[in-house]
C-alpha cells in the first residue's frame, strides 16, 4: 500500500532520536521534524514520477501523526506521518511517511513521560540501532482548497490511499458561473436590446428580469452542485458514532455527491474503528476479569478457608470465655469468603470454564429465577458444535445482558432463552414478553445493545433486536459455528 519507496536514513541525519518531551508543544516540534525528515528523504530519492518531485521544493507540512486504523502489521511496527506539500505547478500532493514506531517511542520514552505501554515497548530501544527505515508513498494529487480542505486526519484505509480533497468542486463553481455569465452576455449581444444613456423604465425592467434569470439559473445550478456539501456540514454538526441511519446517501455524480459519499465512507470507517477498538477493550477487560477471578479463587479464597478451618479448630480447644469471641471472628471470615466468591463469580463465572456454555446459561437462568425475576425457559438445540472459548464468552455475556434488560427494563414475566444451530451459524435468542421498546434505533445505548454488538463483532457475530411496544423484545445473536465443529 505504501511501499513505493523504501530507503535507509543514515544515522545522525535527523533529529528524531533526540529526546522530545511528550507535550503538546513538543508534538508540534515532532511534526516539524517528521516534515524535515520526509523532505530530506524525498530529496535524496525522489519519487519516480516527475511531477511528484515538486513536493520536495516546498516545506513539507505534517498534517497527521500516528494514524490508528492502518493495517495491523503496519500499525504495530510503525507510526505514520501524513504530510503534504505544494507543487510548483499549483497542485498539492499528499504523502504518507511511515516511521518505525521505535523512533517515536524512543523519543517519548527518553522523556520519561507517556503511557505505560510506551514504556513497555520502549525497552526495545536500547538494543535498536538508530539507523531506521523510512517509507513514503505519494498519494493522488489534490488541489489545496480551504473550503473543502484536507480533513485533519485523512484515514488511510483499505482503499490503498485517499483522495485528500475533492478535485473539481472549485472548477465546477467556476464553470457554472462562467457559463451563466456567458449566456447572459450572449443574450445581451444577440438580442435587439440596448440601454439608453438615461435608462428607460422598459429597459430597466428587461435588465432586472435578465439579472433575476441569471441569478436564479446560477443558484439552481450551484445548488445541485453544492447542496450535498451543506447536508454534510449539517450532518457533521450532529453526527454521533455508534448509531445507524445517519448516512447521507446522496445520489448523482457531482463533486458534492462525491463529498457526501466520502463522508459516508469516513463515517463507516470511523464506526468500524470504534467498534474494533471497543471490542478489543472488551476482550482485554474479559481477560483481566478472568485473571482476577482466578486469583481470588485460588489465593484469597484458599487462605480464608484455612482461616475458617483454623478458627474452628481453635474454638474446640479454647476456654469457654474465648469461644464466643472466636465464633464471631469465624463468622466474619465466612462472610469474607462469601464475598470473595460472589465477587469472583460476578467477574467471571467459573462454570463457563469448568462446565461449558450450556451449564453457564442454565446457571444464568436459575439465577434469574432465584433473584425473583421472570421464569426462564431454556432450549438447547441438538447438534450444537463446540464453540471456541472466546465465542462462548461472547454468547454468555450477550445472554447475560439480554436477561438483565428483560428484568430491569422490560418488566417481563416470561423469558425464552434458546441456543440453536441454524445452518452455518449458532443462534442465541432471548425473547421476553415485557413491554418492549418503542424505537429500537434510539434506545441502543440504554439497552446495552451497542456493547453486545461490539462484543459480537470480535468473533464475527451479529446482534439483532426486534421489538414491538407491549409485545416484548427479542435479542438475537448469530455467531459462525466455526470449523472445529464436531457436535458437542
Amino acid at each position: 500500500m505504501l511501499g513505493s519507496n523504501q530507503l535507509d536514513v543514515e544515522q545522525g541525519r535527523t533529529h528524531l532520536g533526540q529526546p522530545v518531551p511528550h507535550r503538546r508543544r513538543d508534538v508540534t516540534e515532532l511534526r516539524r521534524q517528521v516534515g524535515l525528515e520526509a523532505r530530506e528523504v524525498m530529496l535524496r530519492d525522489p519519487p519516480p514520477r516527475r511531477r511528484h518531485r515538486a513536493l520536495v521544493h516546498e516545506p513539507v507540512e505534517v498534517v497527521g501523526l500516528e494514524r490508528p486504523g492502518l493495517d495491523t502489521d503496519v500499525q504495530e511496527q510503525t507510526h505514520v506521518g501524513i504530510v503534504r506539500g505544494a507543487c510548483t505547478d499549483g497542485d498539492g500532493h499528499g504523502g504518507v511517511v511511515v516511521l518505525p514506531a521505535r523512533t517515536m517511542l524512543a523519543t517519548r520514552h527518553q522523556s520519561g513521560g507517556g503511557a505505560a505501554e510506551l514504556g513497555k515497548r520502549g525497552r526495545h530501544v536500547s538494543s535498536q540501532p538508530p539507523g531506521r527505515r523510512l517509507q513514503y508513498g505519494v498519494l493522488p494529487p489534490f488541489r489545496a482548497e480551504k473550503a473543502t480542505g484536507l480533513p485533519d486526519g485523512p484515514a488511510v484505509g483499505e482503499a490503498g490511499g485517499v483522495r485528500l480533497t475533492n478535485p473539481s468542486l472549485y472548477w465546477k463553481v467556476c464553470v457554472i458561473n462562467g457559463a451563466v455569465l456567458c449566456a447572459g452576455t450572449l443574450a445581451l449581444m444577440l438580442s435587439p436590446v440596448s440601454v439608453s444613456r438615461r435608462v428607460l423604465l422598459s429597459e430597466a425592467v428587461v435588465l432586472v428580469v435578465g439579472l433575476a434569470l441569471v441569478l436564479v439559473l446560477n443558484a439552481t445550478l450551484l445548488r445541485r452542485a453544492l447542496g450535498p456539501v451543506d447536508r454534510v456540514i449539517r450532518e457533521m454538526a450532529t453526527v454521533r458514532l455508534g448509531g445507524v441511519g445517519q448516512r447521507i446517501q446522496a445520489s448523482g455524480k457531482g463533486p458534492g455527491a462525491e463529498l457526501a459519499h466520502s463522508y459516508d465512507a469516513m463515517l463507516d470507517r470511523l464506526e468500524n474503528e470504534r467498534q474494533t477498538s471497543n471490542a478489543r477493550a472488551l476482550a482485554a477487560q474479559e481477560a483481566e476479569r478472568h485473571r482476577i477471578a482466578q486469583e481470588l479463587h485460588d489465593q484469597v479464597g484458599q487462605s480464608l478457608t484455612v482461616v475458617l478451618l483454623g478458627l474452628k479448630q481453635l474454638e474446640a480447644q479454647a476456654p469457654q470465655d474465648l469461644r464466643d469471641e472466636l465464633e464471631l471472628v469465624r463468622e466474619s471470615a465466612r462472610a469474607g469468603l462469601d464475598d470473595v466468591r460472589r465477587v469472583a463469580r460476578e467477574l467471571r463465572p467459573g462454570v463457563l470454564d469448568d462446565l461449558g456454555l450450556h451449564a453457564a446459561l442454565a446457571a444464568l437462568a436459575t439465577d434469574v429465577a432465584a433473584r425473583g425475576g421472570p421464569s426462564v425457559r431454556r432450549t438447547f438445540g441438538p447438534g450444537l458444535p463446540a464453540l471456541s472459548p472466546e465465542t462462548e464468552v461472547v454468547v454468555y455475556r450477550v445472554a447475560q445482558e439480554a436477561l438483565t434488560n428483560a428484568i430491569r427494563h422490560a418488566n417481563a414475566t416470561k423469558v425464552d432463552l434458546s441456543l440453536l444451530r441454524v445452518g452455518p451459524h449458532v443462534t442465541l435468542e432471548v425473547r421476553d414478553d415485557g413491554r418492549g421498546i418503542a424505537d429500537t434505533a434510539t434506545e441502543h445505548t440504554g439497552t446495552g445493545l451497542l456493547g453486545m454488538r461490539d462484543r459480537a463483532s470480535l468473533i464475527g457475530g451479529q446482534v439483532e433486536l426486534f421489538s414491538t411496544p407491549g409485545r416484548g423484545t427479542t435479542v438475537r445473536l448469530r455467531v459462525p459455528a466455526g470449523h472445529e465443529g464436531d457436535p458437542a
Partner: protein
Amino acid sequence: MIRILLADDHALVRRGVRLILEQQPDLQVVAEASDGAEAVALLREVDVDLAILDIAMPTMTGLQAAREIARRREPPRILMLSMHDNEQYFFEALKLGASGYVLKSVVDEDLVSACRAAIRGEAFVYPGAMGAIVRDYLDRLARGERVPETVLTPREDEVLKLVAEGRSSKEIARILSISIKTVEKHRANILSRLGMSDRTHLTRYAIRAGLIEP
C-alpha cells in the same frame, strides 16, 4: 472407623480439613493428594471408604478425578469440596458419581455431617441446590402439575418456604428459633418426602428439570 482420602492442591487447606475431621473419633484421614491424578493413583494402593476432592485442582480437576474413581469396581463414596456456590456444579458432581457437595465457606460446619451422610449412602444436598429443587417443586405445584405425594408437617412447611427463599440452615434456625440440627433434620425429611434422598434420584430430577444436560 471411616478411612478418608483427602485431595486439595492447597497444603494448608488439607491440614485444616484433616484437623477438623480427626476431631471426630470415627474419622481418619489415611491419604492426602495434591491433585486429581495423584488421588486416583493413591486409591489403587490405599483402601479408603470416602474420597474428599477439591473441584479446582491442577493437572486433573476434582470432577475429572471423580469420574475416574466412580468407574472403578467398588468405588469409595465421593464428596466434593468447592468454592462455587452454583447448583450446576452440584448436579454435575452427582452425575459423575459424587454423593455430596460441600461449599468451602461452610466447610467448618457441614463437612462432618456431609461425610456421615455420604457413608450412610444419602446425598448431602448443599443449601443452594436445595433451594433450586424446592423452588422447582413449588413452581410445579403452582402450575398444578403432578408432584410426588407429600405430607409435610406444618413445621416442615415453614422450613420449605424458607429454603425456597434461599436461606441457610443457620438463618432458618434463627428465624424459627430452633437448633441447626433440627433444621437439618427437617431438610433431610423434606428431601426424602420429595423422593430425592439419594444421588440417583437427584440426578434424574436435575436432568428432567433441565438443570443439567443428560
